[in-house]
């Protein structure tokens, strides 16, 4: 078991190395980006060509690409000294770069934005898991019933309505809608949990619902399909033949069999979403990772884009390792083989 996980971790490290190379390469090797352009993207100021060339030299953009990569990679572990020709800043380890536009280290920006995204995603995950799985199980248990058909329609809506549309409706209704619905007349703003847990939850609730509705729809359909398949398995017939109550057959024997696949799905989704929920965060103006990445892109702040991309990739790799470990815990057959 421990061997198995160690094995997976080693593999994950390899993947991370590849991810860092690819992330670096994509942004360095973009066609039509000259060395001078690189300097421009890096500093982001209105520099003259001569100044930019000087910056390019300082930053080593004229160095071979592998040297540049190595400087960047080692900076993550040891920190770097960075200067734009006027002043020098120290970017402490783990240094993912320095945003000269905002004059802050990218790491610091990530650390600040992550709790916002985590608040959104984890809260929504509770809602979509509870709602989606429960609906899916009930729909499968009462296949063909009004509930089943209703949930199919609603989840179809959930999957097909984009969140920027439903999100805008929610924002409009809650902040500027009819009086009885205008619960957030002061606007929906992110409040850190440590400042005021109640207002944290209250302000996040619409965001959670907006995000969860979309994802729960996927989980409902997934769980329903998996449950229907499970309910035709032989061990379900055995459970019924033992004289177990229907709800034990469905809720214990049936549900237990689909848990590993739901956990897998949830783990991978969490990994992907924790890296930033660009649309929802931008819509609600919550300063999370998605918003950070979005702003980075619109202002051409290259260090920020690279930092958020790498961080999101790391989260996905970590999620994969965690999912593997969960699977080994949840499925005794995997546990014993490994």
């Amino acid at each position, binding site marked *: 078991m421990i061997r198995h996980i160690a094995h997976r971790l080693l593999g994950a490290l390899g993947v991370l190395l590849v991810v860092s190379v690819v992330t670096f390469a994509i942004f360095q090797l973009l066609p039509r980006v000259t060395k001078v352009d690189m300097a421009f993207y890096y500093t982001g100021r209105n520099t003259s060509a001569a100044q930019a060339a000087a910056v390019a030299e300082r930053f080593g953009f004229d160095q071979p690409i592998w040297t540049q990569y190595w400087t960047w990679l080692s900076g993550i572990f040891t920190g770097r000294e960075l200067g734009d020709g006027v002043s020098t800043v120290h970017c402490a380890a783990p240094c993912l770069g320095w945003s000269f536009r905002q004059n802050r280290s990218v790491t610091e920006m990530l650390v600040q934005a992550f709790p916002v995204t985590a608040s959104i995603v984890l809260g929504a995950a509770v809602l979509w898991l509870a709602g989606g799985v429960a609906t899916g199980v009930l729909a499968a248990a009462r296949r063909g019933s009004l509930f089943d058909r209703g949930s199919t329609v609603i989840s179809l809506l959930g999957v097909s309505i984009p969140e920027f549309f439903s999100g805008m409706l929610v924002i409009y209704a809650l902040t500027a809608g009819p009086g009885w619905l205008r619960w957030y007349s002061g606007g929906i703003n992110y409040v850190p949990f440590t400042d005021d847990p109640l207002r944290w939850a209250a302000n996040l609730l619409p965001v959670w619902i907006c995000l969860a509705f979309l994802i729960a729809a996927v989980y409902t359909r997934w769980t329903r399909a998996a449950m229907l398949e499970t309910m035709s398995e*032989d061990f379900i017939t*055995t459970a019924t033949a*033992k*004289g177990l109550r*229907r709800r034990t057959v469905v809720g214990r024997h049936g549900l237990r*069999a689909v848990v590993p696949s739901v956990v897998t799905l949830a783990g991978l989704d969490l990994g992907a979403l924790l890296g930033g929920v660009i649309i929802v965060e931008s819509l609600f103006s919550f300063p999370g990772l998605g918003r950070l990445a979005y702003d980075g892109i619109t202002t051409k702040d290259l260090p920020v884009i690279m930092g958020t991309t790498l961080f999101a990739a790391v989260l996905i790799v970590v999620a994969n390792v965690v999912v593997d470990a969960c699977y080994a815990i949840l*499925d005794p*057959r995997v546990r014993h083989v490994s």
Partner: protein
Amino acid sequence: MSAESPEALLRVRDLRVHFPTPDGLVRSVDGLSFDVRPGEILGVVGESGSGKSMAGKAILGLHEQARTTGEIWYGDQQLVGAADEELRRLRGAKIAMIFQDPLSSLHPYFTIGAQLSEAYRVHRRTGAKAARARAVEMLSRVGIPAAARAYGAYPHEFSGGMRQRAMIAMALICDPGLLIADEPTTALDVTVQAQILQLIRDLSEESGSAVVLITHDLGVVAETCDRVVVMYAGRCIEQAPVAGLFERPMTPYTWGLLGSIPRLDATLGRLEPITGQPPSLIDLPAGCSFAPRCGFASRVPDHRCTTELPEPLVAGAPDHLARCHLPVEDRQHIWHTQIAPAL
């Protein structure tokens, strides 16, 4: 099909299990009647599509999509159309069932012990400790070594034979009066099959439980059962005590089955298989369902075989019933002069 036997444990009368499908109504079981007497091992034998497994599941009401009609009496309780809760209390407690593939029939994520205890606790209101003790007792009764350790094992850690033993332990944990064993040894090796059949026989004798053993293998029937029901196309075509069936089988279908089986104790030149295919269950032939494949149907005058369903009638011995239009004497003659010598 049998004469009224008031002492029967289970009485099945004119059972029909029909499945509506887009192609038409599939008549998996179509007018099946038989009795199970207390303590006996009744073999239900037939080829695939004969309805033997469908009938077994119908007894416990395990078909969700089927239209089941007819009568199934367990004591004075009628099971066809019984309320869900009434059936549930019966399942596992009075009538238990085991299946062909013990690996897929056990939940892969629960331990053997948890699955056994659960079966006990649902019918007996006992604590976890008592259920555990009972489960360990049952595991050792079915011959699983180190039962206390086996309690915590998962199904995949067992061999096929051990899994089927665990299934049997789980089925018998509440001392049911009837065990329905649906092809319990088909997925097992022949040496393990012999062990499991022996175990079923021993346990039935020990506890007095009756067993309905559903199988495709006439050899298994001969070595395990007391009486046998031969099914063809959803009906019982012949039923008799085991010795009677193998000494003087009274239907051309049973002759055909016996003639199809290669022998371990003799080298046969050529097998005498039944020709053709079993009928479609959507479009059953009028008259005797075996008539289209029967080599003797032409001997019966007036095309009765293809127009009129033969009733189950006593043939040869009082306990021996067969559906066939051929006169009994003719059948005895054919068996002794044509069929038996070739086997």
